[in-house]
């Protein structure tokens, strides 16, 4: 599969152009919607899902951000391609068919537009998404809201006067909106403030997950913070609340980093340079190792201990260090130990082309 055909290769959100991009990787807002008149995806028959898909395909031709996009029938792709899309955060685990024994569903598809995308036949018929680099909630909201209005004007959504937008899972009912910010918090983890922060989030209606969504582990100190409730508050209220809290978390992270430098400057510096050294010279790296060392290097760049390395390169490494990406780079299927070797080689090349120097 040639993802370079996508408007921005599908990785524009990694370019570190947004607000607070050294700490916040990306902002994503997604809206869950269902088409009136069909059973929800998990209960629908193949024929119904295909009719939903053709209705969406037809409507999409009239919607500016999707017109020039690319439609991928996920159910017709080989496993490696589906994994690649999932690793690039372009489709969810469920749509890619990796979420359960049932595998990929008939009619599963994704429409990748300019700066929005649309999953079809995920748990809900439609998952509209906007993904942005850095901390950019307002921009992501404008894009996804516009798409929602245009699409909802052509396709009838399931909507209820009291309950709002109806979704397969009651945890999404109402606005159907999940706004999330992917944030790197090594300072809070190192100073062990993180538990307090995370517990605090849950008390005020927010939740967190790892880098790869629902149920995924926290690796490399990356946390996805998002709204937990979707009903009873307007979209703008939910977004404002998340934005305020994320701003506070960013401040706390910056404070933790200052404390680390002040109280343990030399040890911290040594540890981070060792992380950099390992990435520069290792001949085999597991995914978890790579994530943890990249987290260290990212922190070092944030603290200006290492300069000459772009955040964009570090962001890209998070994505391209994953197995399907490495298999594509090598042009063949890899055994597990080959993946570790390929990962180390890729990281060495990426870092040596942008030699880091002491700041």
């Amino acid at each position, binding site marked *: 599969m040639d993802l370079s055909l996508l408007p921005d290769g599908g990785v524009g959100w990694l370019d570190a152009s947004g607000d607070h991009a050294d700490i916040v990787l990306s902002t994503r807002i997604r809206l869950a919607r*269902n088409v*009136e008149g*069909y*059973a*929800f995806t*998990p*209960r629908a028959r193949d024929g119904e899902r295909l009719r939903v898909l*053709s*209705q969406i395909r*037809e*409507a999409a031709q009239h919607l500016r951000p999707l017109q020039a996009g690319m439609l991928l029938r996920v159910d017709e792709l080989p496993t490696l391609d589906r994994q690649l899309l999932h690793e690039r955060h372009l489709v969810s685990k469920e749509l890619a068919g990796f979420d359960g024994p049932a595998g990929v569903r008939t009619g599963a598809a994704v429409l990748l537009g300019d700066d929005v995308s649309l999953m079809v036949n995920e*748990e809900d018929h439609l998952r509209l998404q906007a993904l942005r680099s850095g901390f950019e909630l307002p921009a992501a909201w404008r894009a996804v809201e516009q798409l929602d209005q245009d699409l*909802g004007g*052509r*396709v*009838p*959504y399931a*909507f*209820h006067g*009291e*309950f*709002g*937008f*109806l*979704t*397969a899972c*009651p*945890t999404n*009912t*109402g*606005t159907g*909106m999940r706004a999330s910010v992917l944030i790197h918090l090594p300072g809070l*983890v*190192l*100073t062990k403030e993180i*538990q307090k922060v*995370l517990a605090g989030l849950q008390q005020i*209606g927010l939740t*967190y*997950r*790892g880098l790869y969504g*629902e*149920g995924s*582990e*926290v690796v490399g100190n990356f946390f996805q913070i998002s709204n*937990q*409730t*979707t*009903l*009873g*508050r*307007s*979209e703008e209220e939910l977004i404002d609340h998340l934005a305020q809290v994320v701003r506070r978390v960013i401040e706390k992270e910056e404070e933790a980093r200052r404390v*680390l430098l002040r*109280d*343990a400057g*030399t*040890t*911290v510096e040594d*540890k981070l340079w060792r992380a950099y050294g390992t990435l520069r010279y290792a001949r085999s790296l597991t995914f978890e190792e790579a994530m943890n060392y990249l987290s260290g290097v990212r922190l070092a760049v944030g603290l200006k201990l290492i300069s000459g390395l772009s955040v964009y390169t570090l962001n890209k490494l998070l994505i391209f260090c994953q197995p399907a990406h490495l298999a594509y780079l090598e042009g063949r299927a890899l055994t597990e130990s080959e993946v570790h070797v390929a990962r180390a080689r890729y990281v060495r090349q990426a870092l040596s082309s942008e030699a880091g120097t002491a700041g």
Partner: protein
Amino acid sequence: MLCENCKERDAVVNLTQVKSGAVTQLHLCEKCAAEQGVETSVASPHSQIGDFLQAVQQQSLTVPGDQSSCHFCGATTRDFRSSGRLGCARCYGAFERSLRELLRRLHGNSRHTGRRYEPPAPELLEQASLVGQLKDRLRRAVEAEQFELAAELRDRLRTYE
């Protein structure tokens, strides 16, 4: 990697400690980490799905006033309890009473106050679905090399564009 404490189980927690200015890293299994008073929830966020299913199960022990199944999709309260998923939009009507309670529990509220939605005008919909059907038929006609039919369908489609 094996746990550095018991050297028996796989290490799942990377414990980073800053003690009197020195940073050390310990790789521990879940059990040893717990014994050291480290919550492992940073390594694996607690499962929302689990909590949610529990809430569903506690909730929908059939509330009077609810239908036992949805007339549109056939889903039963039992289906909902086991999967946590509703079958279709009509299920919200069929299980309205238990759902209202569940939504209140999950969201602290059961009334949507966000964006309102007006469906597209019926004429527009009919036309859109007609256009969709015509395109489907055209695709099939071309695939089956029924060129006369394809030409006719193409003409009909033109009148809508």
